[in-house]
């Protein structure tokens, strides 16, 4: 296990090299990814100067909700970049996936270590900053449970969306046509859940309960962090990592089946 992780770090090291070759461009890109998250929340913030609340949520509370999603999704986007269906699909089409099959090391490690866009860290940093600002401003009342819940929440979201990526990659073994729909689940889902679910129409709330279970991934946990009432008792807030890890585990199993399919039919 340790050896696999060392391999992952080695692959990552090689992937990162050369990314900062053009300093100015890199820094501008880094700033840009941060600015996107900042502007999105900033727009909300500026309007709320006048309006004060959104569906009963204060700016600080919204910052916590938004920031944690941005932080987690940004983290996922970097860690699972190798499994981004667009990247993986291309790899399969070009035949470089075959090369991975010829190396006596785990495939998943190779795929995860094959991509990591350092410039996207801007999103992770701003997400963290916005969430932290919200936590400080409220100020959030810390308890031991909340300290435990925060990383669990992040893990849950990272694993869930990572799992969606992996599912999408498995589909590319079969066809590259329908993977765009995945964007709705990943980018659309994460965008929607960075705002309070209560503002959405019924069908969208259903989407965010059953398809992209934002309710469990971040909404209930955030309610718990903000000491807001939870519908079914405090324990529902702690389901996030279970949902996330469950989806990721399933996704990897399906991926392994996908590899068998690829080996049976070739490219």
């Amino acid at each position, binding site marked *: 296990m340790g050896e696999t992780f060392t391999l992952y770090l080695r692959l990552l090291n090689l992937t990162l090299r050369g990314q900062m070759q053009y300093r100015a461009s890199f820094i501008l890109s880094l700033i840009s990814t941060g600015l996107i998250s900042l502007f999105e929340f900033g727009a909300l913030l500026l309007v709320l100067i006048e309006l004060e609340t959104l569906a009963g949520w204060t700016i600080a509370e919204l910052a916590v909700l938004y920031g944690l999603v941005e932080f987690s999704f940004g983290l996922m986007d970097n860690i699972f970049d190798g499994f981004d269906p667009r990247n993986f699909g291309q790899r399969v089409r070009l035949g470089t996936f075959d090369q991975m099959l010829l190396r006596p090391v785990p495939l998943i490690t190779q795929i995860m270590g094959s991509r990591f866009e350092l410039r996207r860290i801007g999103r992770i940093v701003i997400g963290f900053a916005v969430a932290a600002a919200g936590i400080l401003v409220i100020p959030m009342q810390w308890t031991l449970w909340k300290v435990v819940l925060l990383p669990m929440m992040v893990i849950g979201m990272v694993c869930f969306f990572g799992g969606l990526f992996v599912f999408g990659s498995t589909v590319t073994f079969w066809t590259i046509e329908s993977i765009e729909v995945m964007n709705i689940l990943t980018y659309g889902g994460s965008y929607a859940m960075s705002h309070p679910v209560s503002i959405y129409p019924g069908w969208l709330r259903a989407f965010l309960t059953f398809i992209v279970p934002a309710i469990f991934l971040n909404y209930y946990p955030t309610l718990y962090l903000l000491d807001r009432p939870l519908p079914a008792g405090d324990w529902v807030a702690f389901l996030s990592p279970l949902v996330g890890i469950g989806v990721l585990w399933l996704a990897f199993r399906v991926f392994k089946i996908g590899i068998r399919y690829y*080996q049976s039919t070739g490219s």
Partner: protein
Amino acid sequence: MIHVRNLSKHFRISTHSSGMAGTLRSLISRQYRTVKAVDNISFDINAGELVGYLGPNGAGKSTTLKMLTGLLVPTTGDISVNGHLPWKTRKRYVARIGAVFGQRTTLWWDLPVIDSLSLLQHIYRIPADTYQRNLAKFTKVLELSPFLDTPVRSLSLGQRMRADIAAALLHDPDILFLDEPTIGLDVVAKERIREFILQVNAERKTTVLLTTHDLTDVERLCDRVMIIDQGKLLFDGQLSQLRARFGGKRELVVDFAERYDSASVVGADLVSLENQRATYQFSRGETTASELIQRISSQYRIRDLEVREPDIETTIRRIYEERLLATE
């Protein structure tokens, strides 16, 4: 070492007829036809052999190679390589083989060659002394030093092939699979690669299976040759046997120093005579090239000449047309 029995690989390809009616029909029910890329082939390769695997494009060479390297699962039949079922025990199997593909590299595109090799050391868990020894040896023999620090994307084709072969052998594999290793290379580069393969096979007893279009590759490297066409194994035996039985006619193209009205000669057929250029066909059994040249030059003044070997496509077509099937 490599045992293949009744191996087949079938692909289902969807067919659509052209035109509006065809498109509509295919929307309702997909029609398929089965392509037999590899059709019931069997062979054994012992440790240390250097075998050539020939055939025209689309014959099934790459498909066979993919099954042998574990990239593809056979439809029917048995494969055993080094005691492994290649696709099943992937990680353990792949650690003991090396593979080079002429069409694309196995190295990391943006990295200097040496970094790729260094990473491979860790991937294949090569002991430090073995790695250093092999690296030094390959660097010397394949003359890698000038471009060890160059990113793979900046290498010429010849340099890239040398780097790929070195990479494939770093971990002392038992078997080396080569898919068109000399394709696109100039004559000097080809020779260098061939020399290296011979050396490796002689010194380390590495089993080598090589697919190629280049008959000279075969002549230089392989004692044993297998020929595949349309998925079927047509020939499996010594190169000398192949040449003797199916060699076909060679050609001698002669540019004369002056115009001759006729240029016929004993032991060869004059196929064409145009503007001081004559083309003769002759077969190995009847005449050697040097005999023929002597005979011609004793009668006519030669300015330049060229010996052309029958290409693999012609030879194979001959084999197929004369329905001469493989021995096991």
